[in-house]
């Protein structure tokens, strides 16, 4: 199949092509899926190097399962998010032997107040606030509001019910709102619209 035509092909078709020896299919899948896994892992781990390792490992597992992949049973992207989530959880457990949600707050290394909170600063502030959320709330919020997955897809990734996903995202958003509002003075956007 020509490379241009592959960019329109669904993930599972590309995976079948890869399993049949088509190297170009691996490139298209990598370009399509690696950024998504990296974004998710980076926000889960707050460590770029570890996020890259998780991305590489998750894709390696995809390559290995390709010959046995059964089309129509699951979405490739959802399966990959689940693998990445499990890899992130393992790494977080190793970092925090006391338990996922019992960890102390991450030290805030934020620079001093800025005159106006620009988009990049907002992204950083959100990342810091996300890192202070319990892991499951962070996963649900990142998958829903940054990665754009639907609640049923997130339920499949996290292996929980859709209602549990809705509860996690609602609590996560409330906690983020409170966190960001509580730090607006530190962030120096007191004169900005309140959050």
């Amino acid at each position, binding site marked *: 199949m020509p490379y241009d035509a592959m960019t329109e092909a669904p993930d599972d078709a590309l995976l079948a092509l890869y399993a049949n020896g088509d190297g170009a299919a691996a490139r298209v899948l*990598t370009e399509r899926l690696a950024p998504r896994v990296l974004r998710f892992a980076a926000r889960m781990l707050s460590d770029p190097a570890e996020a890259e390792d998780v991305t590489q490992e998750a*894709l390696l597992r995809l390559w290995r399962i390709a010959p046995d992949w059964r089309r129509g049973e699951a979405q490739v992207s959802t399966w990959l998010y689940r693998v990445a989530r499990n890899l992130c959880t393992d790494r977080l457990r190793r970092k925090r032997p006391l338990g996922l949600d019992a960890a102390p707050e991450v030290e805030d290394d934020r620079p001093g107040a800025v005159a106006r909170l620009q988009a990049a600063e907002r992204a950083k502030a959100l990342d810091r606030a996300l890192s202070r959320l319990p892991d499951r709330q962070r996963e649900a919020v990142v998958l829903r509001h940054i990665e754009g997955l639907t609640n049923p897809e997130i339920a499949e990734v996290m292996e929980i019910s859709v209602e549990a996903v809705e509860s996690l995202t609602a609590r996560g958003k409330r906690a983020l709102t409170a966190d960001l509002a509580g730090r607006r003075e530190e962030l120096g956007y007191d004169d900005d619209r309140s959050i």
Partner: protein
Amino acid sequence: MTMTDRSEAMAELDSFFRAARAAAPVPSEDLMARILADAATAQPKAPAWAAVPAPTPAPIWAPAARARAGWLGLRRRFLPALGGPGVVAGLACAAVAGAWIGFLQPAPLAGLASRVTGQSAMLEQIDLIPALDTYLVADTGE
């Protein structure tokens, strides 16, 4: 917090999410290269006999070599079409076994044939088309 305050807060939070989506990390070239190297290593290899290389043309001044190349080319084309060397070997075994049974008529098989046909004669003596004799006799005017 009133409903209005809550909706304003959520709208503000959405602006943070938009900013986070715009500032997402991008995979480095090194990471992409590592992933593609893994893909190449883990990729299943196609069966060797599935590939059908173009036959090398034999030089016209070497008829023996040309004949050998032609036979090899024919074999390379037909083996995959029949399912590979394993399947061809199985077919050859079945053909030899069939010929052997037909010519030698081993005792166990002859006994089985007697039970099935109700005749004790050997296989070559069984009259499969009895009407043919009558036809031949009539045709020759006897």
